[in-house]
């Protein structure tokens, strides 16, 4: 397995449902510690790192004599479940943490709590379904998690109220692609680690590995306030809906066509200057890129661009099939090109980039 895939594997297999990102934080800290000047964990659990720039403080009028502060963001958390009750036969009742798709839950394998207790979700067997029942998606409130506990007492000892559960999926290489859980947004985390590993940029680089994106961009909001950047980039793993469909609907993004640049989604409108910087860089260096279909999804950029008096922001993402499912798929070429595009675009960024015409 190539080195970059190893990092993605470690990040993907770590468990970090929103509010419980500790295991992912440990992988991130281990990976970036040697490559940054400062590292701290804030009140919510965000990992904030700083890598000093090489530029002399600028004389340009908008700089105020400061080096440019650029923020890079990727969220560490993933969607999952939380234990909210215990049945008399030892089953766990659960609710969603983040955007869980109930269509995907029957038949899945979970890891429950810090001990990673194996658990499964099954539904009424196909043989016992009433007429029409097989057409309906079982709802989360009607599902239970089975960890093999034999009584309510045993279940509540093994998985007390508030215990988190995540999908249990191994990372795999499938030809030129890789599969695993939580590529939204461990793909972004891996891109960000790669960017921190390289040479210093001219500007001061502030990176935030954030918590609680999936429950409302909570970590990014406080991270952006603390950093007070001049501009920000959210790094993501985004929707690639490029499977065959009846209607000729947009694939949102497609696998293998390079990093996806967001111009607008449900959470924000991207800063045109940053979009231009990215597309100009890609075109000049012949790095493939695509635009994400406008209007779909939301990212930490939704919080970043509203920090303090406002922050010009953009989202750049690795296209991933089957995000929010137990197993997603991405192309390592797209991953590589996302790192390349970001590195090249960042190396060109100056105060002038942010000047309004």
């Amino acid at each position, binding site marked *: 397995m190539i080195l970059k895939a190893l990092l993605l594997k470690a990040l993907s297999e770590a468990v970090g449902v929103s509010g419980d990102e500790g295991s992912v934080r440990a992988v991130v800290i281990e990976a970036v510690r040697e490559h940054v000047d400062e590292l701290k964990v804030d009140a919510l659990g965000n990992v904030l790192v700083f890598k000093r720039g090489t530029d002399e403080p600028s004389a340009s009028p908008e700089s105020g004599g400061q080096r440019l502060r650029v923020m890079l963001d990727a969220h560490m958390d993933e969607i999952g479940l939380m234990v909210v009750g215990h049945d008399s*036969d030892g089953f766990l009742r659960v609710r969603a943490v983040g955007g869980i798709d109930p269509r995907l839950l029957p*038949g899945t394998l979970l890891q429950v709590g810090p001990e990673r207790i194996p658990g499964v979700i099954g539904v009424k067997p196909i043989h016992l379904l009433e007429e029409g029942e*097989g057409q309906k*998606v079982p709802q989360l409130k*009607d599902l239970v998690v*089975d960890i*093999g*506990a034999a009584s309510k007492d045993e279940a509540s000892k093994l998985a007390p109220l508030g215990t988190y559960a995540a999908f249990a999926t191994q990372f795999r290489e499938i*030809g030129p692609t890789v599969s695993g859980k939580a590529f939204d947004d461990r793909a972004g985390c891996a891109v960000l680690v790669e960017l921190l590993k390289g040479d210093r940029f001219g500007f001061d680089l502030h990176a935030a590995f954030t918590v609680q994106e999936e429950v409302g961009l909570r970590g990014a909001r406080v991270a952006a306030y603390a950093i007070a950047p001049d501009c920000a980039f959210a790094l993501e793993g985004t929707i690639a809906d490029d499977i065959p469909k009846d209607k000729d609907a947009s694939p949102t993004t497609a696998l293998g066509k390079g990093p996806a640049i967001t111009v607008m989604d449900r959470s924000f409108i991207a800063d045109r200057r940053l979009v231009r910087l990215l597309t100009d860089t890609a075109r000049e260096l012949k790095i493939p890129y695509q635009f994400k279909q406008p209007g779909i999804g939301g990212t930490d950029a939704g919080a970043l661009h509203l920090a303090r008096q406002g922050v010009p922001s953009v989202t750049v993402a690795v296209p991933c099939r089957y995000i*929010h499912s137990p197993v997603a798929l991405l192309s390592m070429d797209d991953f590589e090109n996302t790192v390349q595009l970001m590195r090249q675009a960042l190396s060109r960024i100056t105060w002038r980039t942010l000047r309004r015409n």
Partner: protein
Amino acid sequence: MEVIPLLKQLSEANGIAGYEEPVRELLRQKWQPFVDEMREGKLGSLIALKKGTGADGSAARQVPRPKLMLAAHMDEIGLMVTGVEKGFLRVARVGGTDRRVLLGLEVVVHGRRDLPGIVATRPPHVLPEEERNEVVPWDKLFVDVGLPAEEVEQLVAVGDLISIRREMVELKNRRVAGKAMDDRACVAAVTLALDQLAGVRHAWDVFAVATVQEESGLKGAITAAYGVAPDLAVALDVTFGKHPGVSEVDAFPLGEGPAIGVGPNFHPALVARLKEVAEIHEIPVHIEPIPGHSGTDAWAIQVSREGVPTGLISVPIRYMHQPVETLAAQDVERVGRLLAAFIAGLEADFLDRLAWDTTVEGE
């Protein structure tokens, strides 16, 4: 023999109905030390003979000896490729595969080489409201092998099989969850029984049969029963385990013993004997009333040739035909013990006791 590692090996082996070779070859190795002869039925069932000693206690002299057939099916449900479209595979089911559990599932496509794959799913973010609560129909289900379209065309053809990829996991209380406990749980139980019978004298010839194509219509049981021509048969399969959403009447708790079927598919005197053996050996069992078609190999075996007195022992499993089929290992061990004790105690003239007028007299 340890039951959990055995269940793991058997559940993880592939063997979709009609294509049972991988699991059959595994089983051939497992059974080899315990049986006198082994052959393959014409549809692929594995038929093993452990010779009995007959009425006079000598395997050599009394020919023919009465024949008991044990039948547990080794096939599992799965998918088949029906088309290739833009590098994605269209699929149909083999056996009673439940499409409610397919989205986001890892699979193995048995093309020119085995290709790991994923059942494709559109993220909820892009789905129209009405589709978010709809079970995806077969014509919108695709398998993705993560390769460029041209390469997929080279490697995969219509008719290729697709297995569910799922490692068995151990839950608490010796419960395990895996993809093919239906019916590898009972294949394991038969294996345990053969192990326990090693060196034990029994009057009857025992034909242990791992049948094929049960999931596609009891095909292996029909043909293997004809080939073996047993005097008596016990089929072994799974029944419904209790969990929320399933009626108490349809299901049995895990870990409290196997179920013995009663109803038209089963000979009452054989049922009585199985219950009696369980009681003597302090093996807890449930009675499972089955008013008609048992949906198991027993249904086919009972009407083989001139008719065969048949019984059924079932292991309760939760979430049947889902990749998380869950059972209690102790129930599998109990079926193994029950079978071994039943066989060891089977008198050479047991058939006479099954005569109908005798049963009537006893009432």
